């Protein structure tokens, strides 16, 4: 079979696996957030936390709980890294320095997992396992609970209550993330992913050299890193490292984990709003973007679409032989469309236009299917913008899911779609304007701008992957990207929860003859159009100066 044909079969198998899990997982998620029964273990946890699990919160209280939990998490993770030399399993590593510890704490709490450090030479096993990996779970859970609160805004009427953060958080961790992680950790273990607590130990190789074989509790962390769309690698090479991703089967399993919750959440959405077709319409938009993106990246990576690929006879710089072009391209598209940021390929060495699409994927706002929860709330905000635009065309008050889209909703949606581009473009502009920071660039010419643009697009959209040639372990980059990640995560969450509160307070309006149906192909097409016009075009000048300039030369 040709490489391309095998690649399409591989993508087909992935789609099949996602389709099979779609209904059961989506329905199960809806059940988690609608049942009023607590597990006994959960009651125990609520008692330990000291919260009343049967009281729903106002949107502002819910938001304060999200922010308090995240602030405590940043401080805890910062302290953990600063004290690591005194802790168990530190492997003799010193304390992480202040700016890098801040950056890493902000990164893992915001579900970004941008890494200015290299795991095998910076972090002890305990910090990875009980610090970083815990955030892999809970930051993913925060994204999910925020979108659930938004959905409750649509389905509730004339109330100021959007749910209980502590209950939603605990249930997401216990009922969703933990069981799936346990099962798939075993799958990855069987496939060859390491899991031990050894320090790097020397062996004498066949040719008589010394090689340090590294250890670590990798399998348990690898699975939640993908499932939670976090992406922070145990080792510097991330999922290109054979100990994290040893063969083509683990590769496909990991891509599946990256996508599975984001995809199933559209089912949850449809179930909870009482019209499954609404979820299918959103899924159709996500699928159209994902398929186009995967096809385009595969095209630019196969063949000779760069000077390096031409010289080498194939675009294998930065890629692993075991995954090949198809297994790498499929991963690149999935990781940049989901805010995951785990990589099985060195993105800096992608072909100019292949890398440009990776950047574009992130610029779309991580919505196809996006990060756990954050992808769905991102695309729902864009759906609100779409019904508003449609309402302007026909001169009617726009409605979405039986709620009127009024000035307050539109203001919040507008703030949402302006926040990330502002962070990306101001950040990139600053870094390029300052001579000291410009020097962090590795590659010459237009590609150098792409490195910086990638860094700010990735951090502002909470993706976390990098054009890793850029030297980002400086006080300036650690501080600025740290702040960008925090703003890029929590400002949108503020707007979304405010939106949830505003929608919940409204009365439900029944659909009338003049209501735009939001489950038909027409709406799917309009939403795609809005995503391209409103989001993608914002970045066109920056794309033109970086990847397009390099690719069209």
């Amino acid at each position, binding site marked *: 079979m040709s490489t391309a044909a095998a690649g399409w079969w591989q993508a087909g198998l992935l789609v099949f696996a996602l389709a099979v899990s779609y209904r059961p997982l989506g329905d199960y998620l809806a059940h988690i957030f609608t049942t009023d029964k607590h597990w006994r273990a959960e009651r125990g946890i609520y008692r330990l936390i*000291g919260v009343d699990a049967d009281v729903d919160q106002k949107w502002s209280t819910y938001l304060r709980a999200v922010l308090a939990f995240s602030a405590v998490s940043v401080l805890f993770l910062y302290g953990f890294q600063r004290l690591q030399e005194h802790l168990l399993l530190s492997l003799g590593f010193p304390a992480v320095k202040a700016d890098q510890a801040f950056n890493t704490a902000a990164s893992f709490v915001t579900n970004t997992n941008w890494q200015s450090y290299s795991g095998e030479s910076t972090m002890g096993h305990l910090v990875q396992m009980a610090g970083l990996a815990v955030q892999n779970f809970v930051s993913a859970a925060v994204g999910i609970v925020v979108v659930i609160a938004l959905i409750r805004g649509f389905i509730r009427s004339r109330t100021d209550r959007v749910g209980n953060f502590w209950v939603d958080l605990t249930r997401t961790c216990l009922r969703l993330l933990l069981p799936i992680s346990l099962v798939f950790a075993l799958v990855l273990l069987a496939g*060859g992913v390491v899991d031990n607590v050894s320090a790097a130990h020397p062996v004498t190789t066949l040719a008589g050299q010394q090689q340090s074989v590294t250890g670590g509790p990798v399998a348990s962390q690898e699975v939640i890193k993908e499932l939670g769309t976090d992406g922070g690698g145990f080792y510097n090479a991330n999922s290109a490292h054979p100990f994290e991703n*040893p063969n083509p089967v683990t590769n496909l399993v990991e891509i599946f984990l990256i996508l599975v919750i984001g995809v199933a959440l559209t089912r949850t959405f449809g179930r909870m709003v009482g019209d499954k077709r609404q979820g299918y319409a959103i899924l159709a938009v996500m699928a159209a973007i994902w398929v186009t993106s995967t096809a385009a990246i595969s095209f630019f990576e196969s063949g000779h679409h760069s000077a390096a*690929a031409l010289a*080498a006879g194939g675009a294998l710089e930065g890629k692993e032989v075991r995954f*090949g072009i198809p297994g790498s391209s499929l991963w690149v598209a999935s990781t940049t469309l989901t805010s995951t940021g785990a990589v099985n390929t060195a993105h800096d060495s992608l072909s100019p236009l292949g890398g440009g699409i990776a950047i574009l994927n992130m610029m779309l706002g991580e919505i196809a299917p996006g990060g756990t929860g954050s992808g769905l709330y991102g695309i729902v905000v864009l759906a609100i913008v779409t019904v508003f635009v449609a309402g302007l065309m026909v001169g009617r008050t726009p409605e979405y899911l039986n709620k009127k889209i009024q000035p307050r909703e539109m203001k919040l949606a507008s703030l949402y779609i302006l926040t990330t581009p502002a962070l990306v473009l101001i950040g990139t502009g600053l870094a390029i304007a300052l001579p000291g920071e410009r020097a962090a660039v590795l590659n010459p010419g237009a590609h150098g701008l792409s490195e910086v643009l990638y860094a700010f697009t990735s951090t502002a959209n909470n993706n976390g992957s990098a054009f890793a040639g850029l030297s980002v372990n400086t006080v300036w980059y650690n501080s600025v990207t740290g702040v960008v990640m925090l703003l890029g995560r929590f400002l949108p969450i503020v707007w979304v929860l405010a939106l949830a509160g505003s929608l919940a307070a409204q009365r439900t309006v029944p659909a009338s003859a003049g209501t735009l149906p939001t489950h038909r192909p027409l709406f799917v097409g309009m939403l795609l159009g809005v995503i391209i016009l409103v989001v993608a075009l914002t970045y066109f000048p920056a794309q033109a100066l970086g990847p397009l300039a390099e690719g069209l030369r």
Partner: protein
Amino acid sequence: MSAMTTMTSRLPSGVRQHLAALRALLVLTVLLGILYPLVVLGIGQLAFPAQANGSSVTAGGRVVGSSLLGQAFVDARGNPAPQWFQPRPSAAADPANKNDPGYNPLFSGGSNLGPSNPDLIKSIQARRQAVAAFDGVPAASVPPDAVTASGSGLDPDISPAYADEQVTRVARARGLDPGAVRALVAAHVQGRTLGILGEPRVNVVELNAALTRLR
């Protein structure tokens, strides 16, 4: 309401939220950051000890590395040794040690050189000449994986084409029958899983370990 809630309900709500947040984080850290990884560690060590501990390869009665981590096969001066199948170029080297031949798991990673970077093009061309001369083949026939560094710097695999190219040189350096070496390579070619996943490949560490057993 639990006793603890009653106890803390006199505090201002902001303080109460942060206390709840701290408690939640500590509870979840014990559960997800200690219990969960220990359970996976335990199951891994009991059910999959070989994989969990790094898929060791043995040769001549001793552990010579991991079948998942590529190795440098160089002589004392750091040049490629003709009696071994050579892996791909590797960017995983200690930047502070100029003599590090790569495949150093303490520094995993790729070159991060961009696709139009003249330095990358030059090294690809130089590698092509060097590999062609070393294996005694025309420069144009050297496969792409032989002249490009992987993303991990630890790629244990090469393409079957690159393995075939090296047979004559390895057989001559070891005084072995080229046919026997070629058969060994053929036995080590791994196809696509299920016919569709991944690319056909040869694991260099396993191949070279088997080579030491070939007489």
